[in-house]
């Protein structure tokens, strides 16, 4: 193969010369004639195995593993949504006492600031929980796949 980026024709000629020389120095080797016979003889010595049954079992195991992973993923999603909702509700309930505490600093804007703070904390907690849950589900999935 000639290098397309070669600028000078002399360089191209050298590259082509090297290419031809390498092609001559490394001709494809002939495959040994007794390779196939050796393989067939080795296979004939292999103990008889019911491949069909083995393959069916493997397919069944594979399907079961995938179903288990899907189930775990759905459960993780449900848990994440529930935990997030509970957390946001709890934070929402804390707005009133929080706005009392913030009133000396923000006057009339205290409920809005408290709401905003609660929202921020809720979002952060929710994101952390979600990330953790999915990380757990992912590593369990990998463990399941490996086993």
């Amino acid at each position, binding site marked *: 193969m000639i290098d397309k980026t070669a600028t000078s024709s002399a360089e191209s000629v*050298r590259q082509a010369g090297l290419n031809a020389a390498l092609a001559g120095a490394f001709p494809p080797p002939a495959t040994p004639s007794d390779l196939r016979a050796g393989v067939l003889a080795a*296979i004939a010595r292999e103990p008889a195995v019911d491949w069909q049954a083995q393959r069916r079992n493997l*397919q069944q195991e594979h399907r079961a593993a995938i179903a288990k992973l899907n189930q775990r993923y759905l459960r993780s999603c449900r848990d994440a949504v529930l935990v997030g909702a509970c957390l946001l509700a709890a934070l929402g309930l804390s707005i009133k006492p929080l706005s009392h505490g913030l009133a000396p600093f923000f006057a009339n804007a205290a409920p809005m600031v408290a709401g905003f703070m609660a929202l921020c904390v809720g979002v952060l907690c929710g994101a952390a929980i979600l990330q953790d849950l999915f990380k757990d589900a992912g590593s369990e999935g990998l463990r399941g796949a490996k086993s």
Partner: protein
Amino acid sequence: MEKPNERDADIVLRIEAGDLTGAFDLLMQRYESKLYRLCLTFLHDRALAQDAAQESLVRLWRALPRYDGRAALSTWVYAITRNWCLTCLASKRRTVSLSESYVQAEVDALAAPDVQDASDQGHALRQLVEELPETTRRIVTLFYFEEQSVAHVSELVGLAQGTIKTHLFRARAVLLARLESLGLAEIENWTQIGD
């Protein structure tokens, strides 16, 4: 170039249908030469390469029921063969035995003729390729074994085509520089090399 998945669709169909013997026959017809050449680039020795190719094919036979089609058949076949070659290489290095082939290689190296001699250009070039880093040497050798197809080499060694091209580009630059230092820079005037 035909996609590996399309090329081996007939073999995969047979595996799925449970006709493992038929699938293996086709697989052996299609891959035995490639596997032998792959083993040869790893092991540097025809007898060892034949043994490794044979063992790889037996391992493929044993693993055939577990092929689930997630990777292209060729990728799977080459991965099993490469892994076996690496195992062979590791045990070869551990034993560091003075096997017949090793002694022969040493004798050849000691008896290496003067590279200025035009009749030994092929030998000189092979020696220079031997001096390249292991992966680059494998890629260069396979590239010429596989009729200069970057795509085939990429499949065989499991590296991206861009990486193969980079290795080839660097190898050519190194080889040209080495030839220049040996006073063999006028490679375009070399006579046709062959075994």
